[in-house]
């Protein structure tokens, strides 16, 4: 069985993104399932950035530490990942960087320099050379690549200008690393071709660079022992990031209008929609309008207007932008306008660490808006869920004429996974637009009092109609009359009950694993895959746990959650925030207190190995709270 993890790190902007893309393609070509994510710095160009991947012939769920291979393209990467390589792994570094000292690396965080000094000080200082010695003492194999000499060889062997050759350092590193892991050159070349195939001037020097690196490793460290091919070799498969897949869901889900104001980690969603804005609808060409607004206020207010006029509209943002959208969310509830907001959480509060992971906006999403403003909040656990959720959120927004928040996060946004086309099955896709009034008469009541609280919606412009943020009567006429007011509030309440009753319970939460397990983990969002992966390891070590995944946080599935959790002896909350936001909601709705917690608050993804460790500490040692801290 193959199950291998690797990290490739280097200066931000120095080709780390494309290195990761090449590696994923090479591994998919060899037939493996792959998951890979990018960690990058929020503001310093050239600061450390890395790609973390795992490939396996089983489903590739979560990332794992330590890894079997670290490829460090510069001194900062070698020093940063000195703790991440396993005792049986390879540590590939630039042989010319051995004398470089952490103290001299300006972009490195001061705290990391201090930690390195503590670890490597006894060896004579925080240099790459000493990091290599430490790695070697712990059983890993250091591989010093003379990058400059190899680059000169590439230069001698191609007629390409040196500027193009300089960019092949990333490919030399990854090729050497993959070769050491048992991936043959032809797959590495395939990965390079898939990534750079459209640009022959870039393709050629990269292929030569990979060959030069592979030859060097073979000459100095011996011939490769190739890994057996993965089970999916020869299959045509699909790669998508979380941003991509939400965009795909929206495009096939009938989106007609998308706005955004650029903000990490959400922007790529809108860019993907824009790249695919021309769609074929029943044989005729249509176009989605994608608009970059001047700020988040404009972005959300534009979709309010568009949706009121009949568009199927959404926007995307992250925490800071969502803060600015609060007032408009309130208006969407009052004016009963269907909008979807993809909320890509990142590490806050405030601008916090803009490019890193967090799950701190659950309560923000639930309570956004003022004045009794319930809304649907859906949290996707992985790419497949995110795709279908993107379609469902558009449907629900229009069926219930309400704002819907699609809760996602930076980890999902930046994580690329491999899928089969059948996994994104749109054959049963239904575009539901709810109660519509396409031919309103002169007596049309936009806010007609109905039993289910939902009034037939006609787009603005058909007949004179009033839609505003003010309280209104059935016609939309502004009123402060107490009877009108009560009628409208009760209508909105009935609508909320309709929403709660219309969405099936099985869509609101999922119990994974043995229903009779005594220990239950509860969580929401992208922690799902790390937890599922950890459950396999826990079962192997005799700890039987199940996992209650909350998919819809509002309306909250209180009754079903209570029934499931009543059977559990130990409930453990797993969240990437310190307010235990899901546990808070659970207690508010059911009275159930969650006494045990696994917390991840260092703004890095949750790794399956951490969940295993934390659950063992709670179950075997009686710990109540475990803070897990892996990740560079």
């Amino acid at each position: 069985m193959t199950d291998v993890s690797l990290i490739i790190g280097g200066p931000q902007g120095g080709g780390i993104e494309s290195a990761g893309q090449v590696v994923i393609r090479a591994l998919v070509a060899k037939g493996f399932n792959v998951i890979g994510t990018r960690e990058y710095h929020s503001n310093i160009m050239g600061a450390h950035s890395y790609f973390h991947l795992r490939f396996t012939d089983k489903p590739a769920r979560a990332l794992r530490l330590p890894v079997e291979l670290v490829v460090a393209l510069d001194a900062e990467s070698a020093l940063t990942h000195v703790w991440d390589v396993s005792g049986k792994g390879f540590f590939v570094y630039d042989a010319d960087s051995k004398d470089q000292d952490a103290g001299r690396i300006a972009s490195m965080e001061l705290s990391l320099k201090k930690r390195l000094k503590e670890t490597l000080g006894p060896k004579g200082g925080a240099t790459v050379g000493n990091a290599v010695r430490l790695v070697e003492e712990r059983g890993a194999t250091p591989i010093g690549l003379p990058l400059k000499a190899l680059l000169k060889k590439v230069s001698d062997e191609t007629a390409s200008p040196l500027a193009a050759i300089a960019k092949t350092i990333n490919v030399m590193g990854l090729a050497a690393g993959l070769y050491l892991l048992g991936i043959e050159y032809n797959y590495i070349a395939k990965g390079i071709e898939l990534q750079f195939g459209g640009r022959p001037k870039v393709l050629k020097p990269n292929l030569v660079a990979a060959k030069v690196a592979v030859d060097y490793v073979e000459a100095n460290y011996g011939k490769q022992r190739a890994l057996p091919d993965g089970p999916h070799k020869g299959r045509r498969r699909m790669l998508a990031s979380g941003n991509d897949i939400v965009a795909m869901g929206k495009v096939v889900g009938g989106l007609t209008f998308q706005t955004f104001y650029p903000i990490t980690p959400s922007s790529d969603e809108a860019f993907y929609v824009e790249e695919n804005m021309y769609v074929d609808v029943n044989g005729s060409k249509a176009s989605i309008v994608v608009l970059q607004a001047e700020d988040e206020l404009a972005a959300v207010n534009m979709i309010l207007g568009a949706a009121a006029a009949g568009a199927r509209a959404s926007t995307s943002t992250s925490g800071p932008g969502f803060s600015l959208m609060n007032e408009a969310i309130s208006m969407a509830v009052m004016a009963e306008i269907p909008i979807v907001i993809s909320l890509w959480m990142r590490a806050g509060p405030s601008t916090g660490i803009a490019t890193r992971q967090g799950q701190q906006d659950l309560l923000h999403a639930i309570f956004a808006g003022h004045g009794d403003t319930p809304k649907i909040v859906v949290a996707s656990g992985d790419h497949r869920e995110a795709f279908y959720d993107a379609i469902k959120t558009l449907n629900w927004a229009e069926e219930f004429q309400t704002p819907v928040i699609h809760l996602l996060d930076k980890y999902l946004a930046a994580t690329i996974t491999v899928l089969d086309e059948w996994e994104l099955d749109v054959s049963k896709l239904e575009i539901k637009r709810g109660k519509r009034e396409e031919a309103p008469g002169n007596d049309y009541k936009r806010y007609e009092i109905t039993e289910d609280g939902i009034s037939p919606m006609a787009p603005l412009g058909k007949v004179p109609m009033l839609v505003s943020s003010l309280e209104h009567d059935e016609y939309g006429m502004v009123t402060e009359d107490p009877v009108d007011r009560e009628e409208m509030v009760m209508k909105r309440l009935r609508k909320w009950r309709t929403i709660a009753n219309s969405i099936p319970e099985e869509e609101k939460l999922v119990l994974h694993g043995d229903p009779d397990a005594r220990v239950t983990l509860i969580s929401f969002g992208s922690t799902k895959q790390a937890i599922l992966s950890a459950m396999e390891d826990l079962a192997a070590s005799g700890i039987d746990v199940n996992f209650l995944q909350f998919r819809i946080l509002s309306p909250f599935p209180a009754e079903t959650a209570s029934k499931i959790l009543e059977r559990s002896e130990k409930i453990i909350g797993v969240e990437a925030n310190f307010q235990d936001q899901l546990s808070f909601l659970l207690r508010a709705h059911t009275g159930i207190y969650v006494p045990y917690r696994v917390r991840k608050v260092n703004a890095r993804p949750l790794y399956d190995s951490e969940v295993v460790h934390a659950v063992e500490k709670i179950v075997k040692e009686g710990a109540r709270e475990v803070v897990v801290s892996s990740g560079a």
Partner: protein
Amino acid sequence: MTTATSHLARLSPRASCASCWNWLPHVHYPIVGYCTLWAEATFDDYYCPGYVLLEIKTERLYWCSTCRIKLTREEAALHWSHGHRIFRSAYVEPDVKEEIYEG
């Protein structure tokens, strides 16, 4: 050697591109850079007769390739005294994809 840099002799430890006024190091991988005299890329240990020792004298902006930032003359002198590598500017490939965030 078959590249366009054939008129350059390689490997001069003292006076190489790495300390030449005419040379701009690659923004991410400063072992290569761009020679403004010959208008082509070279490795940092190349040498040619056009070599001009870089000195931090002129009032202008400089590039610290250790910190990867632009500096004033006074700042550059300070970084230089701490052993940082100072240049006239940096070479950024025209198609460089800045993997930086939007806000």
